[in-house]
C-alpha cells in the first residue's frame, strides 16, 4: 500500500491541473453565454456545404 504515498500526491497534481484548466476556461469567457455556443456548432457544420466561398457571387445558384 506504500504506493499510495506517491499516487495520492500525483492525484492532487491532477486536481490542481483540472482546476487550472477550469479557471482558464472561465476567464476565457467560455461560460459567459451558454445558449449561443450550443447552437454554433450546428451552424458551422452547415456552412461548409452551403457557402464554402463567401463573396459577392454566392447568392447566385451554386450548381
Amino acid at each position, binding site marked *: 500500500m506504500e504506493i499510495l504515498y506517491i499516487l495520492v500526491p500525483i492525484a492532487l497534481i491532477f*486536481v490542481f491541473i483540472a482546476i487550472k484548466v477550469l*479557471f482558464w476556461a472561465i476567464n476565457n469567457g467560455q461560460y459567459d453565454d451558454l*445558449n*449561443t455556443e450550443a*447552437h*454554433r456548432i450546428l451552424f458551422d457544420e*452547415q456552412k461548409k456545404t452551403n457557402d464554402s*466561398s463567401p463573396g459577392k457571387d454566392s447568392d447566385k445558384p451554386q450548381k
Partner: protein
Amino acid sequence: MNQAQSQPCYHCGLPVADPNEYTATLDEQARSFCCPGCQAVAQAIHGSGLASFYQFRSELNLKPDTEIQKLNFEAYDLPELQKEFVFPADGESENLVQAQLLVEGITCAACVWLIEHRLQTLDGIERVSVNAATERLSIRWHKDKIRMSEILSAVFDIGYKLTPANEDQAQEKRQKEDRLSLMRLGVAGFGMMQVGMVAVALYTGASEQWMIYWRWVSLIIATPVVLFSARPFFNAAIRALRQKHLVMDVPVSIAIGFAYTASIWATLSASGEVYFDSVSMFTFFLLLGRYLEMRARHNNSLGNSKFAQLLPLTATLVRKGTNGESQTTVAQKSLKIGDIVAVGTGESVPCDGVIEDGETLIDESLLTGESSPVKKSVRDSVVAGSVNMESTVKIKVTAIGQQTRLSAIERLVESASLNKPYQIALADKLASYFVGAVLLFSVLIGGFWLWHEPSEALWIVLSVLVVTCPCALSLATPAAHAAALSRLRGAGLLVLNSDCLAALAKVDQVAFDKTGTLTVGKPQVVEYKSLNSLPEEEGLAIIAALEMGSSHPIAAAFQQWQGNKTARDVKNTIGSGVSGTIDTRQYRFGKAEFASETDKVLPAPSSGQWLLLSCESEPVAWVKLDDKLRESAKESVELFRERKMGVELISGDASDTVEKMAQALGINEYRAGCLPDEKLDIIQKHQDKQKVVMMVGDGINDVPVLSGADVSVAMSQATDLAQTRADCILLNADLTILYKAIVFAKRLRKTVKQNLTWALAYNGLALPLAALGYIPPWAAAIGMSLSSLIVVINALRLSRSELTAA
C-alpha cells in the same frame, strides 16, 4: 408570382401587401417582401454569402427600422465621441482598438452567427464575438484599415442596429462576479469530491499511520475550499458584524471557520476528529444555491439600461455664420448652454431647451407617461430625452448634463431607492437570536467540560457547533424562496428581487399608474361608423394601408388590418392626417377638417377622439380611437377592495379621463397630472403611515416611484428602465395575478416559518445530546443532511401549489 401571393414576407414574416411590389430573386427563387427595408436586408444577407442564415434561424427577424435609415453613422468616427467607448487593445499595433457595442434586433442564436460572419468578411476586423444573452458585441479592429462607421453600416445593412455600450462598469462588474463565483463553485466542487473520497478511507477505519496521512491529504484539499470558495460568507459575516447585526452568514462562517481550525488542530496533534469533508460539502451546497440565484438574476439583459441611454450621442449643432447657417455633428457632451441644435424627426432631444424655430409634436412620456405626443411651437420648452415625432425643429440649449430634468429624475431614483423600506427577512432576525444562543451555550458547555474533563472539552464544543450547524436554518428561507419564484414565474410574475417577497406578504396599499398599466397604453379602434356602404373590414384595411409607413402612435392601432391593400403617393400632413391613392382613388384620413377638405366640418358622432376617412373628398366613415382598459383591470381592483386594501390611481395624465376611469373601476383615491417626484411623494406619505405599498407602473416617469415603493411591479411592455428598477415584472397582462401573488406570499411566509421551526426544533434536540458527548461525528453528519432534506422537500410543496385569490 402566384405562388408567392399568400406567402408572408421572406425576412420578417409579416403579411405582404402586394407580392409584386418588393421582390428579389434569391437562390433562383422569387421572394416577396413587405417593405423596402426587409428587401434590402435580405439582399444584403444573400449578397454577403450568408444565405444559410435563413435555414439556421429559429425565430423570425424583427422588421428593420426604416425610419432611422438616415442614421448618421459618420458621427461615430468623431474622435471625441469614440473616446467614450473605443479603447486601445493590448497588441503590437497601436491602431488595434476594441469596443463593446449593444446589438438591437437579436432574436435567436442564428443572428449571432450572421453578425459574426458578416463582420469577419470585412477587411481590418481582428476579432468579433456576439453574446446573445446580454445582446453585446465585442469587437477588435485596426482603425487604420476600417472605420467605425463602416462597421456600423455593415451591421445595419443586415438588419441590426449597434449602439455603443458606454458606462459599462456595471456590466463588467457583473461579468467579473459571475466568473469569480463560478470559480469558487468549481474549487468547492472539486474539493468536496476529493475530500469525500479520502473521508471514506478515514471512516472505514484506517490504521494510525495511515490516518495521519489521510488527514494531511484532506487538509491540503480543504484549505483552498475554505480560504477561496467560502470567502463570500466570511466577508458578508464581517460586514454584518461591523454594522452590529447578526445575519445567517455569521453562524455559517463560525461553523466553517471553527470546524476547519479545529480539524487542523486535530491533524497536527493527531487527536480528536476531522471535519474537512463536512466543511467542503457544506460550502459547496451553499455556494451552488447562491450561484443559481445569481445566474437567474443576471440572465435578464435588462440590467444595463440607464438614463443616459435615452439621450443621443450626437447633436446637430447649428452655427450662424456670415454666409448663412451651417450644421455640424458634434458629440452631445460638448454642447454648451446657448447653443442652437437641430433635432430631426424621430430623434431624441439631446438637452433641455426652448424651441427657437419650427413646430412639431413631442413625445414627453418620460415626464407624464402619456404616449400621445404634445404639440410644441416657438418658445415652448422641451426636455432632454423626449422624442421629436414630426418635423425638424431648432432648439436653444438651456440646460445640459446634470442640470437637465432627466438628471433630476435620475437623482430622484437614487434617493428613492436609498429610502426604500427594507423588510428584514425572518431568517435573519431568527439568526441573530440563534447565533447568540448557540455561542453562549458553547461557551457554557466548554466551561463545564474544562472543569469536568479538560481533554474532551474542545471536541465536545466542536461537535456542538457541527450538530447545530445552521445548514437547515440557512436553507429554510432560500429553498422556499426558490420554489416560490419558480411558481410565480409560471403564473406570469417574474420576481427579480427575492427580498421583496417578505414585503409582498404585508402589502396593504396598492397604487396603479394609468396609461399602459390599467389601460393597454396605445390607442385602439373602439368604434367604426360607416357613412356609406363601405364595410368595416375594408375601411380599416384602407386606413391601415395609408398609415403603413408612419411612426405615429395612431398608425399602430391599425396594424392588425395591414396586408390586404397598398397605398401609393402617401403623404403625411403634420398634425392633421395622411392621404394616398388606393386603386386609383384618392383617400384622406385624419382630423375631420383635413379629411373632408372643406371648412364645413362634419360634427363628430360623440365625444372622444373621432377621425374621419374620406374618398375623393366624400366622407366615408368615422373611426373612434381610445385607450382600452385592460380586461383584468376591474376584476383586479375589486379583489383588492374586497380585502380592504387601499387602491389608488396615480397618473401623469392631466386630462379628466383619469377621474372617469377611477369611477369606472371603483377607485376612490386618484390623482391626475402628477410629475415623477409628486408620485413618489404620495407613496412616501403612505409609507410614513406604516403602510406597505405596492406600485404598478410602466413608464420612465414611474421609475422614481417604482424605486421607492416597498414592492414595485413593472408591466412587460414597460420601458427597460422601469423594468430594471422594479422588483417584479408582470409577464402577461393579467392584473389579477398581483392579488394572487400577495396571497401566495402569505403562504410562502407560512412555509418559511414551518421550515424555521423544524430547523430550530432539530437543533434544540441535538444540542443537549451533543453537549453530553453522545453524538459521534457520523451521526451528526446524517442528522445534518436529513434536517436539510426535510426543509427542502417542504419548500418544494410551494412550487406545486395553485395560485388562488382565496
